């Protein structure tokens, strides 16, 4: 190499090193986020122009989307269904139930037959009424396996004929009947006093049967595209979709019956990279996003950006009771009692949002704020390990975490692993990111699974039935077939009690406490429902169904 070139390389390298060193020595960003706030001057009403400027809500979807069917029951684009589809009923951010497409509902005495009335004002964007036939067709279509609805079981398990449809033995649920144009009746196989609450979701929004359901009873291919003349029931209707670019544009639905939307236009674009999204937010090019996680989100975007009500959902490190060594309750005790939940939360979310876990229930009736599950105690944890069949850390097999899929979870897991190392002498811990790795040989080995669990509406029995009952996903898959017959019995009895019956909550609390005594999870954090929207987006809140509440009232302030 020529000497001149060498000198140039050295100079360049020195310059880069200097710049990086200067950057490294710089003070960390202050807590005040560098977000453009609307100044007083800016907040003044704009000079009236001859032609009013279009008010646009620019939304980032955290993953590319090529399917905007409202009947998929999941995916990033499903967070925005309330923008263009009206749900049967809806919850506000305080957990209060509101009528929407359905304006009345009632059950028979034993809660096995539910009748819903459709609001006569409820119409599609072409002005045609939403009928009971549309509702039945939508719900049947959701259960047909080829529709690939990800969460249909949450809503229709227990409806007569559901099993036949989900097993491809029928195309319609026999328990759902359109009594007349405005009345739909649902017959259940067992009493469910909170069935009506299950219907308050945007994941089964009534769609126009003649558009969505084909002659064979299956979903019509891409019926939901504007090119195919889709009619919708929400406050906004699609006018263009470029799915290759993952972009969709919506405008006001002129026939929306709940009130005229205050925004003219809604644009969905996919922004997969969190840092890119933050840059776009900070430069004022985005208004809202469905989900965004970075370890410094609060520092960069401010507390208001992530503020929101607590929802009935918690993330825990579930311990598999069927694997060694977590099949020994004393090992589980040791692993749990050595960990301070507040510190786990502090490690993962030093600036929030959310809150640390002290029990399993959150944001539902029946949570006793005074209840103390355990007090972190290193000595008691060591004693528990000594009392276990393994006696000490030397005899423990390696511990494996899975579900360490983002930075915050990794920080929490690393914190827990370090506490175990210092308190219990456990040196061998491994962490894996993806759920996919929970397959093959992992099935027999992984003992700790980080995952969230909870309910889509605030009910303690539903929350616990979906989390700790032996039939629930977490009990079967994350806790290795957890089955406490007394917990099951209490929950099953609670599930037969009316929504307002105090015994419902009391039985749930008993089941909850029994479960905690089994030491089945290392506590992590309770989740809130963050705004993920800029300060100038007002009247903006989300509910536990992960939807924007009353999107027709959302306002974009001048900024």
């Amino acid at each position, binding site marked *: 190499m020529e000497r001149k070139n*060498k000198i140039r390389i050295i100079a360049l390298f020195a310059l880069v*090193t200097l710049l*990086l060193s200067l950057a*490294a*020595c710089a003070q960390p960003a202050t807590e005040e986020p560098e977000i453009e706030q609307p100044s007083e001057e800016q907040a003044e009403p704009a000079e009236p122009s001859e032609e009013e400027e279009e008010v646009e809500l620019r939304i980032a979807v955290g993953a590319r989307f090529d399917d905007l069917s409202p009947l998929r029951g999941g995916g990033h684009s499903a967070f925005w269904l309330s923008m263009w589809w009206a749900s049967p009923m809806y919850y506000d951010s305080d957990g209060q139930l509101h009528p929407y497409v359905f304006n009345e509902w009632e059950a028979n005495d034993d809660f096995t037959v539910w009748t819903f009335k459709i609001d006569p004002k409820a119409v599609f964007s072409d002005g045609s009424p939403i009928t009971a036939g549309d509702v039945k067709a939508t719900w049947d279509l959701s259960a047909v396996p080829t529709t690939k609805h990800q969460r249909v079981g949450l809503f229709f398990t227990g409806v007569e004929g559901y099993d036949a449809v989900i097993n491809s033995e029928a195309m319609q649920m026999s328990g759902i009947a359109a009594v007349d144009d405005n009345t739909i009746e649902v017959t259940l196989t067992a009493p469910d006093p909170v069935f009506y609450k299950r219907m308050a979701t945007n994941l089964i929004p009534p769609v126009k049967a003649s558009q969505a359901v084909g002659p064979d009873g299956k979903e019509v291919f891409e019926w939901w595209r504007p090119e195919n003349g889709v009619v919708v029931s929400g406050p906004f209707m699609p006018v263009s979709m470029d799915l290759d670019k993952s972009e969709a544009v919506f405008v006001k639905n002129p026939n929306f019956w709940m009130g005229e939307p205050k925004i003219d236009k809604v644009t969905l674009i996919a922004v997969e990279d969190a840092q890119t999204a933050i840059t776009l937010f900070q430069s004022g090019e985005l208004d809202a996003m469905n989900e965004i996680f970075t370890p410094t989100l609060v520092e960069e975007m401010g507390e208001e950006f992530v503020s929101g009500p607590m929802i009935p959902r918690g993330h825990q490190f579930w311990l598999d009771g069927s694997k060694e060594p977590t099949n020994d309750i004393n090992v589980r005790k040791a692993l749990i009692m050595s960990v301070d939940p507040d510190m786990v939360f502090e490690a993962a979310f030093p600036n929030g949002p959310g809150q640390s876990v002290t029990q399993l229930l959150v944001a539902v009736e029946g949570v006793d704020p005074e209840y103390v599950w355990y007090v972190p105690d290193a000595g008691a944890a060591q004693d528990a390990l000594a009392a276990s069949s393994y006696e000490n850390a030397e*005899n423990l097999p390696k511990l494996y975490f899975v579900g360490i899929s983002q*930075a915050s979870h990794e920080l929490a897991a690393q914190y827990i692993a370090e506490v175990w190392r210092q308190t219990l002498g456990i040196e061998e811990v*491994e962490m894996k990111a993806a759920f996919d790795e929970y397959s093959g040989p992992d099935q027999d080995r992984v003992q700790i699974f980080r995952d969230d669990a909870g309910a889509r509406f605030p009910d303690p029995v539903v929350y616990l039935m979906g989390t700790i009952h032996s039939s629930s996903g977490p009990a079967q898959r994350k806790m290795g077939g957890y089955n406490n017959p007394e917990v099951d019995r209490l929950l099953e009895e609670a599930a037969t009690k009316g929504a307002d019956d105090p015994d419902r909550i009391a039985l749930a609390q008993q089941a909850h406490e029994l479960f905690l005594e089994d030491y089945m999870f290392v506590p992590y954090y309770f989740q809130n429902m963050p705004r993920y929207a800029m300060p100038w987006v007002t009247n903006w809140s989300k509910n536990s169904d992960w939807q924007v509440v009353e999107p027709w009232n959302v306002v974009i302030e001048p900024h």
Partner: protein
Amino acid sequence: MSSSPQAFNEVLPEGLEGHEPTSLWRDAFDRLKANKLAVFGFIIVVVLLLVAILGPFITPYDFLSQDLSQRNQSSSAAHLLGTDDLGRDVLSRVIYGARTATIVAFSVTAVSLLIGVSLGAIAGYSGGRVDSAIVWIIDLTMSIPILLLAVVINVSLKTPVTYWMDDMYLKTHNPIYRETIWVDFALVFGALALIMWPPYARLIRGQILSIRNENYVLAARALGFSNRRILFRHILPNGLGPVIVLASAGLGQAMILESAFSFLGIGVRPPIPSWGNMISDGLRVWRNYPHLLAAPAVVLGIITVAFSFLGDGLNDALNPKGWR
């Protein structure tokens, strides 16, 4: 034939009398010493080795110890390179990362050299079908994408081997089975070694092809020396210079690959520090805490450039004809 300095000077051209005869390697070392950049690179590499060897004794803190009250601190007297998002000392983790990088780099390069030089020498010296077969193997191996191979190994082999070691530990309580970090080294980086040898083989083969018809080799053959003696005493020593140069660059390359694999999550896994996973962690928060990205990145940059300078200097030293 006498080889004494006196006899040597008797046949030297006028003006060169009094010069001590020196070996090829001594000449090369003298030229290397004169190259300041190479010396700089050499010093950095030596420092790296010392840090890697003495790591546990010179780290100011336990590289795993956390202090949440001290998280994301910038440089201070207590923590020269600051702390990370769990309050761990970054300097201690960078030092431990040097161990990881050095173990990977030297083991990968050593295995690659062993395979590459052996096969290259056999191919170059034997010629004919043996040469064709080895060249075919070289071409085949070079067609394997390194990253893809690492991913495949990580997915298909690492988990079963780790579990097998875990079982063996529980049966035998032999601590050798406890440290499953070695699975990363043996499998992921071992695989690297198995596919990084072709450049060495190609180079040494080319060297031998050009050397084997040199007069001194023909003379050795005429004197009836064995093939082995000719190969190891006459051909290889004269063809090793470029290989040493390539190996020095290979060390830097192996460190970058280790970092790249760890960055992608298929190399060394947290909480064991590697420069790659530290860079990956730092990248997530670089806008607020740039020191977490800068510290491992700058160190990796310095080491890589040092190996490059050293390799460049070795090239100049061992290849005097090309020296400017």
